[in-house]
């Protein structure tokens, strides 16, 4: 039974890592044609693109945009989640927060596009951050509403009756108790923004080339090597964040 478990586990890990392995071979190999099992040559051209050129620029741009989106979505979601969870119309407000996920992001972005053109945010980094933030913010609200549970409210009220002000309750009790949830929400909203394609393409007007946009650009160009390298770069932070996130979640 234990051997079977190990085999299944190994198989699942292998399946999970297979795309990464394949992308690595595509990104670093040259002249890989059928029926060869292995590329003819290895090249670092695509790899060097990470540090300079278009891919490097996209990497920094994506990092910058996703960090902004994650910071603002987490901060606003934390506060709004508190408001919604204690509101008499909690159910209705929560349904509103689900709206961006119920309607397709692309459809919503098309609707928003008119507004963004009017306020001249199309083709700007700020426009992309704002558009992505709307989705990440909704996610953060949905994430934090259950966090602000009746028990958290009871703890908050207990601090008040012990003589603590709202600021003291936040500083000494609620904030320390929130750190794990804040960290998890930050990671997840970062990832939501990191892999966002449709909204970025529409609101960015093709001028804001984040990594997902660049991957499609290379795919359209039939530049498999660069597309594979950009995909690897796109995937790796997600893997790193998920690993860190999982470790902290287990620890906390």
């Amino acid at each position, binding site marked *: 039974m234990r051997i079977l478990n190990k085999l299944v586990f190994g198989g699942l890990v292998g399946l999970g890592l297979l795309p990464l392995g394949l992308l690595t071979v595509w990104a670093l190999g040259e002249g890989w044609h059928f029926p060869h099992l292995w590329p003819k040559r290895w090249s670092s051209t695509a790899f060097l693109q990470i540090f300079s050129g278009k891919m490097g620029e996209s990497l920094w741009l994506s990092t910058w945009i996703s960090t902004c989106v994650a910071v603002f979505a987490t901060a606003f979601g934390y506060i709004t989640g508190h408001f919604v969870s204690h509101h008499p119309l909690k159910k209705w407000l929560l349904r509103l927060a689900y709206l961006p996920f119920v309607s397709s992001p692309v459809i919503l972005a098309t609707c928003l596009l008119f507004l963004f053109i009017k306020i001249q945010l199309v083709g700007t980094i700020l426009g992309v951050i704002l558009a992505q933030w709307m989705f990440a913010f909704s996610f953060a609200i949905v994430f934090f509403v259950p966090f602000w549970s009746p028990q958290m409210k009871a703890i908050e009220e207990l601090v*008040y009756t012990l003589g603590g002000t709202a600021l003291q309750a936040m500083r000494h009790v609620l904030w320390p108790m929130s750190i794990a949830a804040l960290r998890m929400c930050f990671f997840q909203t970062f990832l939501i923004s990191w892999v966002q394609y449709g909204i970025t393409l529409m609101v960015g007007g093709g001028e804001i080339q984040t990594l997902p946009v660049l991957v499609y650009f290379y795919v359209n160009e039939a530049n498999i090597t660069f597309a594979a390298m950009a995909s690897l770069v796109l995937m790796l932070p997600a893997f790193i964040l998920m690993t860190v996130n999982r470790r902290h979640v287990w620890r906390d």
Partner: protein
Amino acid sequence: MAPSVLVVIQNLSKRFGNAMILQDISFSLHRGDLLAILGRSGSGKTTLLKCLAGLEPPDSGQIVVDGQDVRRLKPQVRGMVYLYQEPLLFPHLNVFENVAFGLRLKKIAEKEVKTQVNALIEQLGLADQAHKAPHQLSGGQKQRASFGRALLVKPRLLLLDEPFASLDVEIRAQMQTLFLNLAKTYHTSTLLVTHDLKEALIMGKRFGLMQNGSLKLYETPQAFIQDEQTGVLREMAFWQGQG
């Protein structure tokens, strides 16, 4: 000399939507008193405590503490600590810091904090648990730490909302005795609400019965026992039948 009146509640009412939760509640509490209010779930016990603590605004009525109407005062300055059914220890603080929490808020000197907290922790029988995290404690130990945290701020009135309900029978009995001793030592005035008849009888000096938002107070423990509605007589008859 008769103890002075600490709290006077007059015609306190509270409604949630169409439901009348509290109806013209009136009673008074003396210093050092322990009023036990018996009531079923949904009878309005918790709302009464929350109104007193300042966590829920009453629709009408007066709450006078030490001669001062406290209705407009925030919970922080009312001097009433409200303890829930769960101990609600802060998970990021150890037992010592949980008990010391109220003193830390008041920015009491470190030396004084250590002296007071260590003395109380000793009384609570938690001396060897002081540096443990709340999740390392048993249910009874958590509840003891919770009482310690509340008593150390020397509240004018302690509001207990079924504080022993989550404990098993044996631990509950120990906790009831411990609390009565602590309340005596710290001269604490207490308002306890419970659905547990036995707990009300063990803990209370004075008694009340809450039904559908109305409170009935009893002049003597005997009057509480003799009232059919409290269920004491039925309980006694049951156990006599068992014997």
